[in-house]
């Protein structure tokens, strides 16, 4: 046991590891020299007999008999197997099966240096190594995680978006349904009101001369001029109040919902959206029963312009009510101009009026579905005179086929009762794949009939027999988007241009006379329900206006006035208190235009001046300053 090395072995290796000391001790045992010994140089040791070493020595010193594990242990202490490549045949000097291990600090007779042999720090070493490689890996992992997370986020967002879209659609539909319900209720209320008014009027009328009044069994019939006029005499009644409330309410409701609807049906209404309130208001004005207003409108319309035709009465009474229903298509000012023109010409020269150009940007393409030859011919002729392209269908079936075959129309006029396929069914079918506006042309205009039409997707009702005017109104209402903007048309005459120009004029005025615009503009915002009240201040100016400008309903006033006012001097009656507020609008064109156009983008700069000019004389102080 003690060779020359004993001396060295005396010094215990305090810090050296157990394994290394065992290893050293084992090598000091000379009896193992055949199996394991120091290398020739003393700087390595050699396992000569691997098998014997494993079986006999390992158990003694290391308590196991696993050579591989011994080698592993060596490796842990940074021993390295000496490769036998120093000789050409690759053979170790100690024999083929010898394993020679070497460590710089592991030498024979150098027990002290054992302390320097340490177990490789596995952790740090392993860490450093992998950490070098893993830096990019980790980053990639991180990035990957981020990407995944983001993808999930995006996914969530898009899911949410989809969900919201669906929800939105549902809400929209729901709202539209609600709107429809509300409108239906309104219609009912209107009809009731109309009926009540008619009863009321009838009572009062007894003594007075009754104008020919044809009972249509319809609400509209109640509005014959005489009646209305009589009603006018009655300054105020509960009915009046009620109807006024109703109309005010309508204006607002209408306004709010209009935007909605336009959302729902963008393609159709886009052009129209800007002025829904206007339309609603005007509609209400006409439709609603308030005696004062009506009086003004109808007395002129029916009494003078269109001597009462039973159809006309019906039209006026009913159309407006239901039109609200439809699209809230605002009545642009321009169309009225046409009416003006036509109206003006009727009395003077009938022939000329036959081909009034409503001012389309392109000729509307109309499908006229009508089984009755007479109606078809006349309707076609009227349409033709309005510069429309006409296609006709004999019945609902043919109409559906035409649409199905891809014919595109701007408007479909649909008779209801027809052989083979009635108009309502045809409309229903067409609505499955097409949104072209469909107008029911029918004499069946009881409210439940009309309800049915709307339920099946019709957009409006043109009571039969229609007049040329009612037909034109309908076209202009639903084809607003095809109209040339008012500003574009050359002024034809002061009278004819008036209303049409108003809007544009107003804009321009506003533009040009920036200083003055502020006071009135806010109130006049086109769409705001408040616009009516806003006009009140202007009312005084009415007095100055020639009587011809007869105010109608606040909203409707503009049109009514224009239409009628131009040629038909308004009866003095028109200037009732109620009218005044409304009336403010019509007369001084400029003023009106300014107000109404306030909300619109200015189109034409030149126009305004013209009007400003024209209007000057009748302008009230407020206006005057502005224009100046």
């Amino acid at each position, binding site marked *: 046991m003690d060779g020359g090395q004993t001396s060295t072995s005396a010094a215990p290796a305090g810090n050296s590891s157990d394994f290394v000391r065992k290893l050293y001790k084992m090598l000091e045992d000379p009896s193992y020299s055949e199996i394991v010994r120091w290398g020739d140089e003393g700087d390595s040791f050699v396992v000569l007999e691997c098998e014997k070493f494993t079986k006999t020595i390992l158990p003694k010193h290391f308590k196991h008999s696993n050579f591989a594990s011994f080698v592993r242990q060596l490796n842990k202490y940074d021993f390295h197997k000496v490769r036998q490549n120093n000789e050409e045949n690759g053979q170790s000097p100690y024999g083929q099966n010898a394993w020679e291990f070497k460590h710089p600090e592991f030498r024979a007779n150098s027990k002290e240096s054992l302390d320097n042999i340490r177990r490789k720090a596995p952790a740090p070493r392993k860490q450093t190594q992998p950490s070098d490689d893993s830096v990019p890996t980790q980053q990639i992992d991180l990035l990957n995680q981020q990407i995944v997370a983001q993808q999930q986020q995006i996914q969530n967002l898009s899911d949410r978006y989809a969900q919201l879209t669906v929800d939105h659609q549902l809400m929209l539909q729901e709202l539209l349904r609600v709107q429809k319900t509300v409108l239906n209720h309104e219609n009912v209320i209107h009809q009731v009101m109309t009926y009540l008014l008619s009863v009321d009027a009838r009572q009062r009328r007894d003594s007075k001369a009754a104008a020919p009044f*044809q009972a249509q*069994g319809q609400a509209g019939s109640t509005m014959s001029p005489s009646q209305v006029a009589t009603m006018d005499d009655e300054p105020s009644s509960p009915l009046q109040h009620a109807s006024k409330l109703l109309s005010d309410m309508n204006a607002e409701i209408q306004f709010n919902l209009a935007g909605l609807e336009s959302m729902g049906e963008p393609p159709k209404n886009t052009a129209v959206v800007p002025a829904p309130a206007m339309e609603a208001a005007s509609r209400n004005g006409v439709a609603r029963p308030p005696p004062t207003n009506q009086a003004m409108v109808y007395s002129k319309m029916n009494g003078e312009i*269109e*001597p*009462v*035709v*039973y*159809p*006309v009465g019906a039209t006026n009474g009913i159309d407006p009510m239901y039109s609200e229903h439809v699209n809230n298509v605002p009545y642009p000012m321009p169309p009225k101009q046409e009416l003006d023109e036509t109206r003006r010409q*009727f009395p003077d020269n*009938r*022939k000329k*009026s*036959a081909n009034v150009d409503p001012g389309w940007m392109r000729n509307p393409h109309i499908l006229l579905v009508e*089984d*009755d*030859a*007479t*109606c078809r*011919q*006349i*309707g076609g*002729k*009227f349409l033709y*005179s309005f510069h429309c392209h006409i296609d006709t269908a004999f019945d609902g079936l043919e109409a559906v086929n035409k649409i199905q075959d891809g014919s595109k129309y701007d408007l479909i006029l649909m*008779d209801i*009762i027809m052989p083979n396929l009635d108009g309502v069914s045809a409309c229903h079918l067409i609505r499955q794949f097409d949104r072209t506006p469909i107008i029911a042309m029918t*004499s069946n205009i009881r409210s439940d009939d009309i309800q049915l039409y709307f339920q099946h997707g019709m957009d409006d009702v043109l009571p*039969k*027999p*229609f*007049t*040329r005017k009612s037909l034109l109104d309908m076209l202009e209402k639903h084809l607003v988007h095809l109209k040339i903007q008012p500003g574009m048309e050359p002024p034809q005459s002061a009278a004819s241009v008036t209303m049409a120009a108003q809007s544009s004029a107003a804009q321009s005025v506003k533009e040009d006379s920036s200083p003055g615009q502020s006071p009135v503009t806010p109130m006049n915002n086109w769409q705001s329900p408040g616009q009516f009240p806003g006009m009140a201040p202007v009312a005084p100016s009415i007095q100055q206006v020639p009587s011809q400008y007869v105010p109608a309903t606040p909203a409707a006033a503009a049109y009514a006035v224009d239409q009628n006012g131009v040629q038909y001097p308004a009866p003095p009656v028109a200037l009732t208190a109620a009218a005044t507020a409304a009336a403010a609008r019509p007369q001084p064109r400029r003023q009106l235009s300014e107000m109404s156009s306030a909300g619109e983008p200015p189109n034409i700069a030149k126009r305004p001046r013209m009007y400003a000019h024209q209007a000057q004389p009748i302008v009230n102080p407020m206006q005057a300053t502005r224009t100046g």
Partner: protein
Amino acid sequence: MAPTTTTKTVEEPPKETKPIPSTLAEMSESIDQTTFEQILEMDDEGDNEFSKGIVIGFFDQAETTFEKMEKCLKEEDLAELSSLGHYLKGSSATLGLTKVKDACEKIQHFGAGKDETGSTDEPDKKTSLSRIEKTLKQVKEDYKEVEAFLRKYYGEPKTSS
């Protein structure tokens, strides 16, 4: 045109001997002036081909319809009578032929088993039929009146049937 020009009407020879009026105003009972003038306005300058064509077309239509109505009356086909009434109502209304239109409307209602305003049910088929018969007779009278007037108006004596 002498009143006798109407003698050839399909249904019944005219019995009236009063002179046919020559202006629309005189016919205001039967013809709505405004409505009819609307159609006249559609005529081209210098002729009245369009309105005349429509009016003549209406005569054919009306007479055909009256024949059908007579037939349906015999067959007691109320539904078809109502439908025919509606049909002729449309075109007569479009022309402003108020009387004819009103009568046709009544026939439409009677045929639908209602009273003449269409508001109350009339369960008795016989009653409805007899009312239609009466109304039909009346509407033919009314029709002949306006036909005579319009033919005179257009200087178009009745040529067929």
